[in-house]
């Protein structure tokens, strides 16, 4: 079930909200848990068992970690258990295809459809057991609370990836009041409008461009496609995050922000502090930092190797090498997490490369002059847009030719003018998308210290946005039978 579907908007959401808000406090968690399982089972009835199994594994794993001396073994087993599901459903066929190609094998692909949201909830589950291992939180004795944390429907299918220590307290003690509900509703509407009105519109343009054979594209068209895709992915993803955060507020949860105007960044380092913040912080907390701390461990192979390197090349170089290795692993994993394909891996490494270079050169330091800031911003946007071309492309070959066409090194024979791709509506939406990607209306939803007139105006605008979004969703169901009209 998608947030931007009529079933969710007009059936599931109002019923769940009504039941939740009018229910007594002690029953609210049950309502939410049942609703979340129903939400998942609606689209994936078979794979709800996978999610329930992961819940059970992590529940048992955390208890064993907290109870027994050999925590590390139980931690590793639990993490392996989580990752095995992810590997089987998401990555197995990728490895099989590559092995077949490399070694000329004929291993049959497995017939498994990836359960929706598995990348998100396995990472949430891993964050839980690691937090228990680190003794940051107590293991959850109530399996229903753990199930609620992992399966909570607002962030189940598209994030944000909520770390357990951020919500542990809220699972036990949270309040729902009218202000939170109102703010949540507003946030939800903003997210819905971002997704339905902006992302879908620009996505249609990007899809049109990317669906053309590369031989029929020229420089201008490729830039158009790349820019539209850049904004499509931002509004799609951040729209979903806004909806998730808004829904969280309605149910009394306060999730951390997932996007912070990433397109005002002046370096890729800054970009990744503003883009998909929950994923970036997950990799930082659960992969990058542990890797960086490995050399400090007592008498391990890695710590001994590190000390040897340090003696050979010096402290600074050894540190840089360690950082490089850590970034390599983290960004490989980041890319790979996004999809089982070489384009995703290359995109991840591409980002890691620029972060490494920025760290080495100090490029990401704050500039004082406007010219310097503008140059940094231009550099960042260029790197981001080109990276997203790789991300969007089906194959590396297509990405390569697309990039060459963008810079005029190759040019196809276009059969369409630009107007084929964009008309007035798309141009208006693109201009709005660019404007709204800047923090011009950051405080629009705040009511503290605002006049009634201003609040009323914002509320009216939000209601209008909601009606327009609902209209767009309804229009996507309009399906005249054309065939017979000949």
């Amino acid at each position, binding site marked *: 079930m998608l947030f931007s579907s*009529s079933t969710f908007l007009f059936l599931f959401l*109002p019923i769940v909200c009504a039941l939740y808000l009018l229910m007594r406090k002690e029953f609210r968690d049950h309502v939410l848990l049942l609703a979340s399982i129903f939400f998942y089972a609606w689209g994936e009835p078979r794979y709800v068992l996978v999610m329930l199994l992961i819940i059970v594994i992590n529940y048992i794993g955390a208890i064993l970690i907290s109870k027994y001396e050999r925590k590390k073994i139980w931690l590793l087993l639990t993490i392996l258990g989580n990752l095995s599901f992810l590997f089987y459903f998401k990555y197995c066929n990728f490895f099989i295809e590559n092995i077949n190609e490399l070694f000329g094998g004929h291993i049959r692909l497995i017939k498994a459809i990836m359960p929706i949201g598995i990348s998100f909830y396995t990472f949430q589950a891993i964050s839980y057991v690691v937090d228990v291992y680190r003794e940051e939180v107590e293991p959850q004795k109530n399996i229903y609370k753990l199930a609620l944390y992992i399966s909570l429907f607002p962030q189940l299918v598209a994030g944000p990836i909520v770390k357990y220590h951020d919500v542990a307290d809220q699972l036990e003690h949270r309040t729902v009041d009218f202000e939170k509900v109102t703010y949540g509703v507003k946030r939800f509407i903003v997210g819905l409008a971002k997704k339905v009105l902006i992302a879908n519109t620009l996505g249609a343009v990007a899809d049109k461009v990317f669906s053309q054979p590369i031989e029929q594209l020229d420089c201008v068209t490729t830039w158009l496609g790349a820019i539209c895709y850049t904004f499509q992915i931002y509004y799609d993803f951040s729209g979903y995050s806004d909806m998730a955060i808004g829904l969280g507020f309605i149910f009394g949860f306060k999730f951390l922000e997932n996007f912070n105007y990433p397109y005002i960044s002046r370096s890729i380092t800054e970009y990744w502090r503003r883009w998909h913040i929950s994923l970036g912080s997950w990799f930082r907390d659960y992969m990058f930092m542990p890797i960086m701390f490995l050399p400090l461990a007592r008498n391990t192979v890695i710590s001994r190797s590190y000390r040897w390197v340090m003696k050979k090349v010096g402290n600074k170089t050894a540190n840089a090498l360690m950082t490089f290795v850590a970034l390599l692993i983290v960004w490989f994993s980041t890319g790979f997490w996004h999809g089982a394909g070489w384009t995703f891996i290359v995109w991840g490494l591409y980002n890691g490369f620029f972060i490494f270079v920025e760290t080495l050169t100090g490029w990401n330091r704050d500039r004082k002059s406007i010219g310097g800031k503008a140059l940094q911003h231009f550099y960042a946007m260029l790197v981001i847009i080109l990276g997203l071309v790789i991300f969007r492309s089906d194959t590396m070959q297509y990405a390569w030719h697309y990039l060459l066409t963008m810079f005029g090194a190759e040019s196809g024979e276009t059969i369409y003018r630009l107007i084929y791709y964009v008309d007035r509506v798309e141009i208006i939406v693109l201009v709005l998308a660019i404007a709204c990607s800047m923090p011009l209306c950051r405080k629009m939803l705040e009511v503290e210290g605002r006049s009634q007139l201003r609040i009323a105006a914002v509320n009216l605008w939000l209601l209008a946005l909601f009606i327009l979004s609902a209209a767009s969703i309804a229009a996507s169901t309009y399906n005249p039978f054309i065939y017979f009209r000949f």
Partner: protein
Amino acid sequence: MRVKILLITFCLTLFANILCLPLWTEYDYSSFVRTLFNDEARLDVVYSGKFTAAEPFRLQCLPQPVDTLYWYGCGDEDNNTRRANLTLRARGEWQKVTLQLEALHDGTITILMRGPDAGPDARNEYDEPFDVLTDWRNLKINGKEIFTESKIFSYVGDVNPSNPVEKKVVPWYDRILMYDEPGNCTYEGDYAQSFSVKKNDRLVIEVEFRRHRVSLRDFTWLKSGKIRYVVAGNLLFFFLLYRLLRRLEKRQRRLQPCDVIFTVVFFFLLFFPMTHITNAVRSVREDRVLRTKPELKEILERYSNYGRRYEDWLNDHFSGRAALVQLHDTVRNTLSGIIRTGSAVYFKKVSWMFETPFVTDMDSTREVRNAIVQNLVQLNDFCQENNIKLYVLEVPSKNRVYKEIIRGQYGYDEAKLDEASYTLESMRNQIRKHGIPYIYPYEALCHASKQELVFFKCTHHWTDWGTYIGYRALMEEVRRNFPDIPIVSLNDYHQTRNRRVRDEWSRNYNTGTLRLFFNFEEASGKLPFYNYYDHKDADKVELKVGKRKKKFLYPAGKHKVMLLGESFSENFLQFLPYSAYQTEFIRLNSGWVKWTDVYKIMKLYKKDILAYKPDILILSFASGRLSQLRDLFLTQ
């Protein structure tokens, strides 16, 4: 405090009742607003009886109607209808209208006094027109009073009749296309008055009408069976709202009134669509059958997609869907210079519509082309065995003939359009080499398009002029084997002009397919006039119209002709039946045939061909359907 909250709850419940009034009354807000601002009424004159190609009555109306539209209803072989829809200007005060009618044939005349048909926009989820009401009184026919008191009529009949009325049966049939079973129409009420007429009978019909004066009484007509929902809904709403307000009171926070209203309105908007799920089966606007609700037991099936099927059903039936779609399309159509959907594009600047993709699937493989050739050769052999001469007519695509328009708007390389055609031209030549006359009047249409439009701008069909060009190209080929067959000249025709499109089975004027593709209506001033040709000898043609066949008998014609064709053949029937003595037309894509079987000609029509034994068999199809000629001899 509790009393205060009770009072507030009571007032809000009352307010909600007013908002939700349309859910349980026959009269809704759209109808109310439209009636308030209505300035039209409709007076329809319907003739039913033995069908001819000519007019069954002459009509004069005072005052002059704003618009007169003649409409064919399709019936069965013995009973058909012809209608004149007169749109009159309605005002707040009573006006008199006088109709003078002369019957030219025996039959039944029915007068319908109704509110306006406010157009496809003014439809509820059942695709029924909103009730836009008009008042009528003092109906007299040839001086005889039928009723004097004021009555309220909508487009579909009497509104809230106070007395039981007699059911009357009139054999007429009023559907646009031939999909529906022809049959009788029953109506209740005084809005329809029916009487038999003989040839040369004269009638004088006088009646007064005005825009309906809206009153609160109009909202008291409750839908049957809804009382229990009204009561239950009120109780539930009152209870929930009271609880909510009590909780808010307990919290004692500084709430912004704007936020309270905002949140309540938001949740109201969330709940509203589910309060009234329609049980409509078909959407006239989308021309399709709506999805059905899946059975609960499907959840237990192994590869159940219950969720998706349920969503599909809900998407077709939730309340307010039509209004939301209309809002979206209005915004899109207003802002866009080029309106695009998945299957067509409309260039607003030049008011041209084209179906997409611009190049059809006939940039096809060699296997497909070989199969087409084989099938046509086989069909030709069958015809020769039975002494029938086969002619194949391929109607060129509008995209090809008007490629300059597409190129001008999109920059689309017309060479791409032509590329496919070069391959196809060699296939056509191959067919001709087998001795099969294959007519592809592309060049003739391109040349003729410089004189007048050969295709309609707002639909995919060819105009009467374009059809005539195609007809001439065909007949010149036919004359090589049948030198005595007459070819009609346009001098044999009455020429009329109309901005509307006349292109389908019913031969009714319509606004094309912009509404279907884009949910959009072009302003009539932006559309050109098209020339229409109606033969001067139309009343000499005996016409029989059936479910999927039309039969013409024209004494001055020569030879027996059978035409197998699609919608492009409909305009053809303005010309072909005046060349042949007997013409039988079988519509391939009729509503009685599954769309996958449309071109399985030998499976479906072999018996008809052998029974009819035509001298000439014409197979006509649009360019876009060329690949389906592979199915000619399929029997499965």
